[in-house]
């Protein structure tokens, strides 16, 4: 498809217009955190950021979501589902986080069961990606099949080049949007910008400091469920805080419960959950199939590097590096992947 240009001086105008026409979700600074929130205009948007503390996954799977409300008096029961989904633009998401959304699709838009809450948001949202300008020390998207300027999953991808944004149109949805804003997202000769983007991508790809190679790791794990490695010192230090799962853009597990709002009324909510908590698999009868951190850690990492691949043919990690950055005891998925290769080969 075509490519276009936005002058940096006009990006505020574009954001203001998008905020008027759409439910605009964009990166903002909230106290010390960079995260994605609904914004009312360009003044709230943080364009100069490296990687947000929390991924924009909440755009499609909100941290807390009402699935319906009920009124139950004991004899009569009424169930009301929320109606309508707003037209939304997710602006400024990084390529790794957008790739992560693609790992959600087969889960929620499954062959067997769909998910109306997810699909309606997914359909009504235009994703405008923003290429990375920098590679952080925790980044390893290249090892998971992505890249700092990767277009995968975006409807439009913006890349900052000099005083311009180079705009690549990836999908029909993206095309419709640029056509509607063609006064700002202008048609111009983009041949030089395309070259500049390739140069940038090449330059950034040489800046990764973390060396990870996923080749063959799944195959090694296929026949190595029981490894003493999972009970080793590196894993024992896990304090089970669940941070890795909350900041992870591919973690999609949720809990469902009722929140009482009155004598007879309440909401059924689904909220992010974490496989790192013992209660996650604790059965009412007292049995817990993953009773200690060893099993829980193994399950989390096996999910990322094997189970998601087995099930959906996609690796369940995009290399955003958040878990590496945020883990309070420095558990590092890149080290685990490299260790596993060695451990399993010698097993």
């Amino acid at each position, binding site marked *: 498809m075509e490519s276009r240009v936005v002058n940096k001086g006009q990006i505020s105008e574009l954001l203001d217009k998008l905020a008027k026409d759409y439910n605009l979700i964009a990166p903002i600074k909230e106290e010390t955190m960079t995260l994605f929130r609904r914004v009312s205009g360009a003044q709230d948007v943080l364009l100069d950021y490296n990687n947000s503390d929390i991924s924009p996954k909440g755009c499609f799977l909100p941290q807390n979501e009402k699935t319906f409300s009920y009124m139950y008096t004991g004899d009569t029961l009424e169930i009301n589902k929320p109606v309508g989904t707003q037209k939304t633009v997710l602006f400024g998401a990084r390529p790794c986080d957008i790739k992560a959304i693609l790992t959600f699709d087969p889960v929620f838009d499954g062959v067997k069961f769909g998910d109306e809450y997810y699909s309606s948001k997914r359909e009504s949202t235009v994703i405008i990606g923003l290429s990375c300008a920098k590679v952080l020390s925790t980044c390893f998207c290249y090892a998971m099949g992505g890249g700092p300027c990767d277009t995968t999953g975006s409807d439009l991808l913006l890349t900052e080049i000099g005083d311009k944004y180079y705009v690549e149109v990836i999908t029909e949805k993206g095309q419709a949007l640029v056509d509607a804003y063609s006064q700002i997202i202008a048609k111009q000769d983009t041949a030089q910008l395309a070259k500049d983007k390739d140069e940038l991508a090449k330059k950034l790809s040489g800046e990764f400091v973390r060396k990870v190679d996923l080749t063959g790791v799944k195959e090694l794990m296929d026949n190595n469920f029981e490894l003493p490695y999972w009970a080793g010192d590196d894993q024992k230090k896990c304090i089970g805080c669940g941070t890795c799962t909350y900041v992870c853009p591919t973690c999609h597990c949720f809990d469902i419960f009722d929140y009482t709002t009155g004598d007879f009324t309440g909401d059924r909510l689904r909220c992010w959950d974490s496989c790192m908590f013992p209660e996650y*698999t604790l059965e009412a009868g007292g049995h817990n199939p993953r009773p200690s951190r060893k099993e829980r850690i193994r399950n989390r990492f096996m999910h990322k590097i094997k189970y998601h691949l087995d*099930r959906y043919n996609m690796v369940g990690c995009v290399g955003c590096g958040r878990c590496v950055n945020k883990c309070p005891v420095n558990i590092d998925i890149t080290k685990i992947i490299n260790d596993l290769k060695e451990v399993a080969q010698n097993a």
Partner: protein
Amino acid sequence: MPNPTALTPYPATITKIDVEAGDTKTFTVVFDDPEIMENFGNQPGQVCMLSAFGEGESTISITSSPTRGKFLEFCVRRVGRLTSVLHQMEVGQKIGVRGPYGNGFPYEMMKGKDLFFIGGGSALAPIRSLIDFVLSDQYRKDYGKVEILYGARSMDDVLFKSDLAERWPAIANTGIYTTIDRAEEGWNGHVGFVPPFIEEVAPTPENKIAIIAGPPILIKLGLAVMEKLGFKDEQIITTLEMRMKCCLGKCGRCNVGSKFICVDGPVFSLAQLKQMPPEY
């Protein structure tokens, strides 16, 4: 078939409550919308999510066979928060039900064969749907001898007492073997744990499928006995349970390796189980 994609349950009314044991009740439930009841299409071995509004949802197996009529039975032991709320409910009160979920028992492949059911404790509930299915007037001719070996902790803990004592023995070509863990006054049957009792009854593997359900320890020891008796992995069927929230393969927690119990199970053959990590 009702839309099983939604996380929204259908309103249903409790029409009957049978007290099975001190901590276990069987609830008969009918959907308020007759069309949903008519088209629910549940298969033996499938499960539902039951809602007690204000408390949440839990996965409960359907204990009734679809051959018995347009209603659902759920046998529920009071063990946690939601089941405690259910146990306080009365006939006429409303709950939410969504489903049916899971693969159910492979009753087609069992045709023409003898069936040997092994149940321990409350695990008679999930296999009862298949027992009643194969013993129904409609399908009885498709299956050979049907035997049921069931063990409970005590006399009071024996579930479906009238099924075991009257209804099932009255059907031709059936065999019922019951045991309780410790001797009690008034109990004339076998005393002892299920695995050694299986060895005593000694079912032969020829043209037979064994369906085994129970707490993890019973499954583990029971399977060892069955293998000793000569049953092949393909001849042994079991049904698993794990904590679930969505029952749609999305909430994440009921995975055993790459499989989700809720959509790929809950029914697995021993041959399939051996391909999966022992984490259930």
